[in-house]
């Protein structure tokens, strides 16, 4: 039966297509056929899919088509001055001062003046500006870009590939162990509402080990629309820690996609910490490509006012003997809404899979809401899989216990909230970073920290 295909597009859907048409010639790598083919294919995929809406299961709680009314023009790199004071303001002083190899992307542009490319090179990491690399992609990038756990069905990712203007590409050499984290700092710009599309690519060669921190902060641009994607391919016996800290401006739209692929006997420990943006969508696609690997993806989100934070995880066990853990905690105040959708798929033959996920939220107000949708799709018979979800208010009995010991109510509440979030934060192994997150949570709660 042939039904006429309805080719209706919303204003924003059309504006995104127009954005591509008008920017196409000026996008990095426009003269490189491999790159322009990649972009063309991606924009076509987006054209077919349109913006995701609530009737698409994975976007049930975040109707992007309804929420996105206008598409802002692409942010232009003006080379604005950024120093330590700006970094501190945008990220919080604890995060800004983390000892790390810094790579700073401002207005979508990797800023050599703020980045430690030389230090990374010395340590055995090839680090390049994605924009530069797209002009003449090195062969290692060509085997990774848009090819790490690729998704054909994700319009947000397709838009990222079509419009990516900057970011970093890293190749961590075989058996290289980095002593310091690589801190990729992604800031907006200043002035008028704009959109920015960034892409990071990380290739961790076999046996390498490193920690990556991606920090998203704001220099004060209003109405930022960000589409960020990161691809991480971990070679056999590689071990990558990957952290995302999101504190974009409070009117920002933050769309983030992680694509992760693990080789054999590899390890991936990820953590996402979200306190910013008006609407945040965190997508994480991870898959096991080699046996005997382990991943742990955890996170915490603290939202208030009318903030909306949607975390969508898809973990695919395609091979036997792999372990996955997901653990998320959220604190929701005001009319904020938190969403956790976690799906574990165990392919036929992926025996001895061990997959568990847990999500919980603490609701600080009547109007706050938490939606949790854990899913398991299991096609193998010798597996251990489980999931759990909780949602509740502060326990009044615990509160009374603390108050009866002289701790004033506000402080007692803060202590209980911190304890709740702490269960997620304690999964961050790096002490300096964990401490920074504890302090960021305390600051969010308005608690003085001694």
């Amino acid at each position, binding site marked *: 039966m042939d039904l006429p295909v309805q080719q209706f597009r919303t204003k924003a859907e059309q504006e995104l297509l127009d954005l591509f048409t008008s920017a196409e010639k000026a996008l990095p790598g426009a003269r490189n056929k491999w790159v322009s083919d990649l972009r063309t294919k991606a924009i076509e995929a987006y054209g077919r899919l349109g913006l995701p809406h609530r009737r698409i299961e994975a976007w049930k709680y975040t109707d992007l088509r309804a929420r996105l009314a206008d598409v802002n023009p692409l942010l232009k790199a003006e080379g604005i001055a950024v120093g330590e004071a700006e970094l501190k303001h945008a990220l919080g002083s604890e995060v800004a001062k983390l000892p790390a190899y810094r790579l700073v992307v401002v207005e979508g542009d990797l800023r050599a003046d703020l980045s430690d490319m030389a230090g990374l090179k010395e340590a055995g990491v090839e680090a390049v500006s994605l924009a530069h690399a797209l002009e003449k992609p090195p062969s290692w990038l060509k085997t990774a870009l848009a090819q790490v756990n690729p998704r054909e069905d994700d319009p947000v990712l397709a838009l990222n590939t079509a419009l990516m203007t900057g970011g970093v590409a890293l190749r961590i050499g075989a058996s290289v162990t980095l002593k310091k984290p690589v801190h990729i700092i992604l800031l907006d710009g200043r002035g008028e509402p704009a959109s920015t599309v960034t892409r990071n690519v990380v290739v961790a060669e076999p046996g390498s080990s490193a920690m990556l921190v991606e920090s998203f902060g704001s220099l004060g641009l209003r109405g930022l629309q960000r589409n960020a994607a990161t691809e991480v391919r971990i070679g056999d016996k590689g071990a990558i820690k990957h952290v995302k800290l999101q504190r974009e401006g409070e009117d920002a739209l933050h769309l983030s996609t992680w694509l992760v692929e693990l080789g054999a006997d590899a390890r991936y420990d990820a953590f996402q910490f979200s306190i910013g943006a008006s609407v945040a969508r965190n997508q994480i696609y991870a898959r096991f490509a080699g046996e005997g690997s382990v991943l742990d993806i955890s996170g915490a989100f603290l939202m208030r006012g009318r903030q909306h934070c949607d975390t969508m995880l898809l973990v695919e066990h395609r091979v036997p003997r792999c372990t996955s853990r997901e653990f998320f905690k959220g604190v929701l105040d005001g009319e904020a809404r938190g969403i956790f959708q976690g799906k574990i798929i165990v392919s036929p033959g992926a025996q001895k899979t061990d997959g568990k996920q847990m999500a919980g939220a603490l609701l600080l107000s009547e109007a706050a809401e938490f939606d949790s949708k854990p899913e398991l799709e299991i096609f193998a018979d010798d597996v251990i899989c489980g999931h759990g979800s909780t949602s509740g208010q502060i326990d*009044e*009995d*615990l509160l*009374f*216990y*603390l*108050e*009866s*010991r*002289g*701790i*004033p*109510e506000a*402080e*007692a509440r803060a*202590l*209980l909230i*911190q*304890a*709740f979030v*702490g*269960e997620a934060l304690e999964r961050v192994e790096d002490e300096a970073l964990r401490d920074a997150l504890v302090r960021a949570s305390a600051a969010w709660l308005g608690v003085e920290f001694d």
Partner: protein
Amino acid sequence: MLEIKNLHVNVDGREILKGLDLTLPQGEVHAVMGPNGSGKSTLAYVLAGKEDYEVTAGSVTWKGEDLLAMSPSERAASGVFLAFQYPLEIPGVATMTFLRTAVNAVRKARGEEELSTPDFLRLVRAKAKLLKIDIEMLKRPLNVGFSGGEKKRNEILQMALLEPALCVLDETDSGLDIDAVRIVAEGVNALRSPKRAMLVITHYQRLLNYIVPDRVHVLSDGRVARSGGPELALELEESGYAEFGEAASGAAA
């Protein structure tokens, strides 16, 4: 000095305390006994300021002030301490952090300097030793995985650290074997002082062998039915609570 006059308290719309009078002078230890449902634990919670306990009539004066007008933390700062019958577990809050937060909150409210970390640790070590509490235990989350005895000893440790002027012990002996009762009682006795009043709530006389009270009050149906010297406790040990409505207490429990 604590003065309770004609105290009426409702819990979930039901009257539990029905005109309770009790005076506890500074430096004295009074025991409150009584059958189940007579209102012993309600009295403890009302003194500490638990929210869902509605005072419908009467007054509680503490050091000349209206205790009932104070928030739970204000009561703690003014020297009131309740040792809980069932201490609560708080995963995610290290016992040591909790103790330090409490001690410094109370010191701050009393206009004293907050303790530095080394000073605080010294203080905790000294007090914990008296109660035979392993310092390693205090690094664990508050009361999580603690045995019944450990929880009760932890309550007394908190009491020792907060230096209250009024200690209310709610069935501190319940669920403890005799050795644990002895350790807890020693901890309590070490805190007896002319400047400190204690209200020891217990169903059984056993605890009063170790913590010998100055006065004993027997509660029945929300009032003090009888008061006397320590010998009253022994008498109850012999005769039970029959004359105080133990048989009829089922309905009031």
